[in-house]
């Protein structure tokens, strides 16, 4: 810590002042700005003291990746280049991170899936890379539209996984994400997810910190594994590794290594609660009906709650901010009074509802829906309709006009 404190108050080559992260995010003046989510990603990275960004085009993150190229041209990012594919990009991110750099990248949908082999490798190697995932459809036939199914695949990689609702979340969480994931007891990669297009391509008012203040640089010497040691694991993975031996010691070592990754996810809980002000946000959780959601489904749920109030139905809301670490106790507490728990999601499988069912007593209270996917929007009316149907109230079909 002494090394980090020593740079606070000094300036980088762009004249930005390295600022205590808590002061930067909680005390520095904010300027309201009207930006798309992609532009907000650029503005956060401008203040993130990033050493390396590696890009590959895939909708809907291409714009953000291109905008960070502009930051590189302006001198705010140390190095920037395009990889040969998403798999190559994530491998190159690992190389840069192994070398002690603060690394950033963005991907989406099939890109996430193509690069998947790298994510448990990042976590296993304790590389605190930050990856923005602007979620979109992943299955054939092709869809570039919003769909959060890819998050389900990230949940068991050992990465931290956060799900932003708004562009403001994005701005703050990109900066906070580096602080949490670079803690020496955590030191894990972060997948910071959002719903593609809904967040990346719509404009919103976002309160930005001053451009002349930035995060302190990454200190690789606080890493829990040696930096750039070519002889020892995790860099040395394939020459005489213990994973290639068939004996109890080798298996026990590898098992313990895996346990340590998930222990680090657990340790991130304390830091995530500190920086995100809790793993969840709650409103009116004393109500009989509670909506639990993540991403932009939270916004739709909030509007549905307003519409239900007009009809005299009181409803609470839980916004799940962090998916890894998973807020099991928080959700159990927030839903303890609920007779009905609705989980609206932008994916076909309902992975969030499954996680919630596994976390709470009386899981039959969970209504896994409404679901939309493949790029469909989720009008708040269908959440209202789902809730009213479950309560035995009269509702009407939203599917068409009838004959």
């Amino acid at each position, binding site marked *: 810590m002494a090394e980090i404190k020593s740079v606070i108050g000094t300036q980088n080559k762009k004249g930005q002042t390295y600022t205590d992260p808590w002061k930067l995010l909680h005390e520095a003046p904010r300027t309201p700005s009207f930006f798309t989510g992609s532009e907000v990603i650029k503005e956060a990275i401008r203040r993130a003291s990033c050493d390396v960004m590696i890009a590959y085009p895939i909708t809907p993150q291409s714009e953000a990746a291109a905008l960070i190229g502009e930051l590189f041209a302006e001198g705010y990012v140390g190095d920037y280049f395009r990889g040969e594919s998403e798999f190559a990009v994530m491998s190159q991110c690992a190389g840069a991170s192994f070398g002690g750099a603060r690394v950033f990248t963005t991907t989406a949908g099939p890109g996430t899936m193509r690069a998947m082999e790298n994510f448990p490798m990042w976590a296993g190697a304790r590389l605190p890379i930050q990856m923005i995932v602007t979620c979109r459809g992943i299955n054939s036939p092709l869809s570039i539209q919003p769909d959060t199914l890819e998050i389900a695949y990230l949940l068991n990689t050992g990465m931290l996984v956060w799900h932003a609702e708004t562009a403001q979340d994005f701005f703050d969480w990109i900066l906070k994400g580096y602080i949490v994931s670079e803690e020496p007891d955590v030191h894990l990669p972060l997948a910071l997810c959002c719903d593609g297009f809904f967040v990346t391509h719509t404009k919103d008012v976002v309160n930005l910190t001053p451009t002349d203040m930035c995060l302190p640089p990454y200190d690789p010497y606080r890493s829990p*594994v040696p930096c750039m040691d070519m002889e020892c694991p995790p860099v040395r993975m394939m020459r005489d590794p213990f994973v290639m031996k068939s004996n109890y010691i080798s298996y026990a*070592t590898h098992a313990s290594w895996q346990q340590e990754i998930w222990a680090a996810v657990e*340790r991130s809980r304390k830091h995530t609660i500190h920086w995100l002000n809790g793993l969840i946000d709650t409103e009116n959780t004393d109500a009989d009906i509670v909506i639990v959601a993540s991403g932009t489904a939270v916004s739709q749920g909030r509007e549905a709650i307003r519409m239900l109030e007009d009809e005299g139905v009181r409803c609470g809301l839980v916004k799940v901010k962090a998916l890894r670490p998973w807020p099991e106790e928080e959700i159990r507490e927030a839903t303890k009074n609920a007779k009905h728990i609705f989980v609206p999601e932008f994916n076909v499988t309902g992975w969030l509802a499954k996680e919630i069912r596994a976390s709470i007593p009386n899981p039959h209270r969970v209504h896994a829906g409404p679901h939309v996917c493949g790029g469909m929007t989720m009008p708040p009316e269908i959440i209202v309709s789902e809730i009213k149907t479950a309560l035995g109230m009269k509702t009407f079909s939203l599917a068409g006009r009838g004959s």
Partner: protein
Amino acid sequence: MSDYRVLPGPEHFLPPAAASMGISLPNPGEAHINGVITSEDKAYEEAARQFLMAKVPTIFPGPLVLWAWNEKAAKKATAVRHLFNTLKECVQPGQKPMLIPMPDYRPKYPKINPEVEINPNHPNLTIWHNKIDCCMFIGVHCHQANLSLKIIRGGTSCYTIAMCAQAGHEDAMLSFRDASVEKIMKLADTVKRLKGTVQPRLSAKNGASN
């Protein structure tokens, strides 16, 4: 707060990481004993007591203090040597303090020489061979320290202490955090102060050979 306690083993064929059992790391200025957050002063007393009780109290210095890669590391190494010399001065006949390095983390086959080193991938070989019943990790990268501490807890009854330069280790039975030259020297001073007040367990069966 978790009911789980981080105790000497042998605990299990594959024991859990203490963090996954709800054990949290201490905040700055604190330490933990058996997974319970405590004051640093109490931890100094308990660490010194465990050292003086042990038949083979051992310090395992890792690469971060073995190599003089910066001035701070060199000073810490000197402090570690001072702690070891203090231990030798303070133990009773029959006790055998040891200083065994963990020079690197390479998997070594067919096996390491447990007389001269400890390796994080199979630390129990060194614990068993030397009948070590109390050890302290210092200067070991956190990931490798946790790996070793958990494996030791799984297969031996050795009492483990971590003098960690970062956030501490839940997988040790006792852990300091933000280790510095001053903290190592304070532990040495505590050992010296408790000299002669702690009964070594020389007659007990050495459980570390499990």
